[in-house]
């Protein structure tokens, strides 16, 4: 196994993480910048994606246990879930469904191809779960990964401001809307402004991941 792929990924990600810790802004997001940089390096040197993935695939494999590990924050948040069960349940059911349907139908209306529709449908859930869903339903996991990150960046950059603009002040509503619409990246932003909203956002992200992975494959069968 050629260790170049994993080394390149770790070096580039480390450098952008350092930059991000110095300049915290949505445009210094280390994941997106690393993807772009490595893609440019591979193209520039004519390195095939397969030989890069030879060892970088180890990192991708770890997404599986990482998703399993999300059980721990959900378990620790069980008191919050119990206290706001109705809001969380209905908020996720509504928001999770709207996220899938709006992405799917708008893309279809504008002439998106089937593989694009399948790749964009899971864009609101946390990347690891979205990639898993995309693989299962016949989307393009790489395209899904990038669309999920871009969605997260929108939430990270604008969610609190947009919620202010539509005059939503309730902390539970703000947290849920952020987590359901823009997963971990949105959560990372709102938690800086309000700890309760941040905790609810994190829970909403994890639970919406589960909800979407249960619903989306069946929903897509009906929509296709």
């Amino acid at each position: 196994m050629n260790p170049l792929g994993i080394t390149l990924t770790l070096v580039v990600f480390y450098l952008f993480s350092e930059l991000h810790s110095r300049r915290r802004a949505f445009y210094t997001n280390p994941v997106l910048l690393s993807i772009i940089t490595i893609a440019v390096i591979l193209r520039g040197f004519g390195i095939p994606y397969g030989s890069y993935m030879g060892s970088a695939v180890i990192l991708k494999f770890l997404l599986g246990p990482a998703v399993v590990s999300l059980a721990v924050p959900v378990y620790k948040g069980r008191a919050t879930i119990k206290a706001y069960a109705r809001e969380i349940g209905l908020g996720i059911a509504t928001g999770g469904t709207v996220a899938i349907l709006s992405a799917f139908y708008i893309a279809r209306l504008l002439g998106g191809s089937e593989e694009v529709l399948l790749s964009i449908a899971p864009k609101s859930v946390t990347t690891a779960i979205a990639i898993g869903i995309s693989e299962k339903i016949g989307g393009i996991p790489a395209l899904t990964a990038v669309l999920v990150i871009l969605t997260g960046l929108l939430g990270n950059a604008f969610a609190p401001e947009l919620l202010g603009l539509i005059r939503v002040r309730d902390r539970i509503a703000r947290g849920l809307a952020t987590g359901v619409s823009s997963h971990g990246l949105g959560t990372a932003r709102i938690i800086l402004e309000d700890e309760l909203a941040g905790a609810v956002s994190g829970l909403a992200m994890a639970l919406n991941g589960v909800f979407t992975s249960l619903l989306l494959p069946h929903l897509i069968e009906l929509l296709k």
Partner: protein
Amino acid sequence: MKAYRGLAIIFGFYALGELVTYILNLTVPGSVMGMLFLLGSLLAGLIKLEWVEGEAELFVRNMSVMFVPPGVGIVAYLGLIRSQAVPIFVALVLSFLITLVVTAKTVEFLRRGEK
């Protein structure tokens, strides 16, 4: 040595999740099934939080770097993205906005009814 217990539990639940989705031919990713099984076991008291807490948090905290290799796969689809730029990016932005607003207003409405 304790870390091995946590890692064995996490990888074990991942393997169990993959096995169950394979056998039952489920559309849910095996990792999500594994998460549900681990959550159930924690709630049922079969697994103690301190057995897995440290290792799970290590995975969750360092998840970001794991998205880079699958994301880099995008190089193979640049042509597709260019030719479908309008449906992809308009759907992405509008769907984000609609989801945010609908969810926030739904929950706000529920909360108002409560007070």
